[in-house]
């Protein structure tokens, strides 16, 4: 069975779903169900005392989905660590999607604070999945710090622009000894398929599913894209043929051998 294994735990689905930005809890749940996912991210926010809403948690079957709380909103390592600890106190398993995004315009992850927070959280026993820029050296630093996976971005959050960071993702995938989950920027099932064809272990999608009139339909399509990409990768994609250079032969000397 070609399962995704993170921190020793096995998953059938390589598509993770983010639960943000959906128009309703119902839309969110229909997307989750149609995707076949087993891991969903959630965020932590202050309760609005004037208007305490129905908690979205009641709509997520904890037996079916692993909750992956993110630390969105954190602008530095200290805030991220605090959010992770809060999530843990809520009775979650100690999995955390580490997200430190001080820049409110593009929500790009801060590499320095992310590494700092990862080191602290790993020591506290968290299973850390850091959202990070597509930086191969940072990926190795995080791996060294003990994170359970790395989550490099394909393109800035919400832009749906696909694998803008393709070349660097390829290096990260080549060099990683832990799972690589491409997160952010995946706007179409073909983007997800492409990431999987490149050898990514999983993808995380949110905006593309929330921002459509048919979340369930789009979600099912993404699941197929992930599957197709993965199967192609396993089957062994042939590369493009490179033209041989028409310069003088490099191995001619061997044919003069007696």
């Amino acid at each position: 069975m070609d399962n995704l294994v993170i921190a020793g735990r096995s998953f059938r689905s390589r598509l993770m779903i983010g639960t943000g930005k959906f128009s309703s809890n119902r839309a969110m749940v229909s997307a989750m169900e149609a995707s076949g996912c087993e891991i969903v991210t959630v965020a932590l926010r202050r309760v609005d005392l004037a208007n305490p809403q129905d908690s979205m948690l009641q709509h997520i079957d904890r037996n079916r989905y692993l909750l992956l709380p993110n630390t969105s909103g954190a602008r530095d390592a200290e805030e991220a660590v605090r959010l992770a600890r809060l999530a843990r106190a809520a009775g979650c398993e100690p999995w955390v999607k580490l997200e430190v995004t001080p820049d409110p315009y593009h929500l790009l992850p801060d590499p320095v604070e992310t590494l700092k927070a990862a080191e602290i959280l790993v020591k506290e026993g968290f299973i850390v999945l850091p959202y990070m820029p597509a930086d191969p050296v940072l990926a190795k630093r995080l791996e060294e710090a003990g994170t359970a996976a790395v989550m490099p971005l394909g393109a800035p959050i919400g832009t749906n622009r696909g694998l803008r960071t393709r070349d660097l993702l390829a290096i990260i995938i080549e060099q990683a000894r832990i799972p690589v989950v491409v997160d952010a920027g995946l706007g179409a099932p073909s983007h997800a398929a492409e990431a999987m064809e490149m050898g990514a272990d999983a993808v995380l999608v949110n905006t593309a599913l929330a921002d459509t009139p048919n979340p369930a339909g789009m979600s099912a399509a993404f699941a197929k894209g992930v599957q197709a990409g993965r199967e192609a990768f396993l089957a062994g994609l042939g590369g493009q043929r490179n033209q041989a250079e028409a310069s003088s032969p490099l191995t001619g000397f061997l044919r003069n051998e007696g």
Partner: protein
Amino acid sequence: MQLQINGEAVQAEDRIDVGRLLSRLELNPQLVVVELNRRILTPEDFSETALTQGDVLEIVQFVGGG
């Protein structure tokens, strides 16, 4: 007495415990996380923890997020 909850000033009866405060606010203790003066409380602590003047609370819950 006055407390600070989620950045706002809130009046509450003296020595109220966290559990009673949550029900006064109509919040389900199983669905929220409480931080009191920067210390995270476990649900077991709620009824044991009495609040005093000037206490700072953060009450958070899970919401949708990517």
